[in-house]
């Protein structure tokens, strides 16, 4: 009940935020613009449109995760709204997890909105999307769940600018993880190899969620990859959220 109350309030707060609408507005704009490309591109037009539109959904989802996530806890501390929450009979983990679930609700709503728009566009232009497109959205949701957890972790001990830099770093490194690994293994120096190994095991490997090409080409996604990525994402998210709870529990509010 408390968890639900905090999640619901977070959801409502973000849904009422004008910033969200500008993100939605641009997302809709880009999705519609991808239709225009149908007219001007030559070659495999259908795939180009799908690639741009699916890419846009991923990009807007990531932007939303990071930029809503980094302010989530910090804003409560800065605006002192946390005073009247923490002083109620509520464990601190309930607060963090509640905020997290509320924001995930917002992100899910937005993905659903964009997905709905995508499906409508496809039905009018190309025909129904393949199963792998839907699966790619599931992977995106798991990925954004992990990214949001990182953003909350940073948000519970640093100001938005710092938290944004860290979150973006996690995002970039996360997507380069496979490259870091490959590059690191080929390195001459033993130290570089070790550092690459540590980075590979500690930082999230967001490339496991990347099924963009398969979805664009309407190719099936191996079931094991789906299961593996989902397990990895949920497990990792739980660890990062626990860290956020731990950091938040030790905090003094000025």
């Amino acid at each position, binding site marked *: 009940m408390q968890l639900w109350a905090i999640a619901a309030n977070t959801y409502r707060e973000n849904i009422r935020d004008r910033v969200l609408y500008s993100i939605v507005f641009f997302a809709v704009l880009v999705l519609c613009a991808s239709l225009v490309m149908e007219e001007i591109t030559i070659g495999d037009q259908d795939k180009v449109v799908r690639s741009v539109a699916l890419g846009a959904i991923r990009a807007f989802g990531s932007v939303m995760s990071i930029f809503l996530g980094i302010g989530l806890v910090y804003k409560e501390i800065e605006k002192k*709204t946390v005073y009247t929450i923490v002083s109620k009979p509520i464990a601190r983990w309930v607060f963090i997890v509640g905020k997290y679930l509320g924001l995930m609700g917002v992100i899910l709503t937005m993905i659903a909105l964009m997905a709905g728009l995508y499906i409508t566009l496809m039905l009018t232009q190309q025909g129904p999307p393949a199963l792998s497109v839907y699966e790619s959205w599931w992977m995106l949701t798991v990925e954004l769940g992990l990214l949001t957890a990182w953003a909350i972790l940073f948000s519970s001990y640093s100001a938005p600018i710092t938290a944004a830099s860290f979150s973006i770093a996690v995002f970039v490194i996360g997507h380069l993880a496979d490259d870091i690994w490959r590059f690191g293994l080929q390195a001459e120096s033993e130290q570089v190899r070790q550092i690459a190994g540590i980075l590979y095991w500690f930082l999230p490997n967001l490339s496991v969620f990347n099924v963009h090409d398969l979805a664009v080409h309407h190719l099936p996604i191996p079931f094991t990859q789906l299961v593996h990525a989902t397990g990895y994402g949920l497990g990792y998210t739980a660890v990062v959220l626990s860290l956020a709870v731990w950091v938040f529990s030790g905090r003094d509010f000025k």
Partner: protein
Amino acid sequence: MSPASSSTAEVVLRCEGLGKVYRSGFFRIPYVGLEDLSLDVRRGEIFGFIGPNGAGKTTTIKCLMGLQAATSGKAELLGKDHRDPESKRGVGFLPERPYFYEHLTAREFLHFYGSLFGLPKAVRAARIDELLARVQLERFADVPLRAYSKGMLQRAGVAQALINDPELLVLDEPMSGLDPMGRLLIRDLIFEERRRGRTVFFSSHILADVELICDRVAILVGGRLRGLGTVRELVGDRIKHVDIATRVTAAETELPGEVIRRDGDAVILRVGPDDTDRAIDRLRASGAAILSVTPAREHLESVLLDEVQRAAPINQKRLGVLA
């Protein structure tokens, strides 16, 4: 009298050697915000917490409410360790200069806080209507808090502190930012809560109110407890001085006391409590009319000022006391 007058009444708020050392800046320089505070607040009391700016009142309250971790000592709320979230179930809290979710209306905000206590919707709805009426915000119930004035926010804050019908109310400067009607409203509300057997612990700078409504008062200066007792115990029955209003004759040149106001032949004289009789005799002998004689008692204010003066050397040691 209130149950508070018996010292056997149940303790609802207890601090034992509570202390907070802040460490700030790169070098983590220690600063004592609160030192070894021990006090008991009993059920049914109105307990005032006073002290100059920076005395540590808010620090104490934040430690009690779990917003900051005390660095020493312990505390109990309603018989439970204050670090246990469950100890807050029967407590209502109003922070200093409260801020709330601006995107919510007062009604939504109170529903949200009520649900944090696990109150069913119907209970919340009924209580919210009653509370909004009590703090006189009914007309603004459906206006977002973003559009509230400072005093309105303060009232909304008081309403949220009462949402769980608390046994113990902890209020940090509940009268600040309020107009005279608002102050009166809070005063009545505190009385009303006591009448219902509730306990109120509040900090304030408005000593006249504290003097008027508190059963007991603690004086905090420089992070230390410098006085604790009923207003009467702290202030004493001592008469500070006596003001004599008189109408003097034109011939009168030397008056038997300090003239604190003169308006034509109407004069107000201030004399020491032991000089009153003599001064009146002399005035009457010279043909002056005595209009009124008003004894001035000591006020909490002068007790506080005395304590601040006496604490001055201690205060200087506060910075880097652990170094």
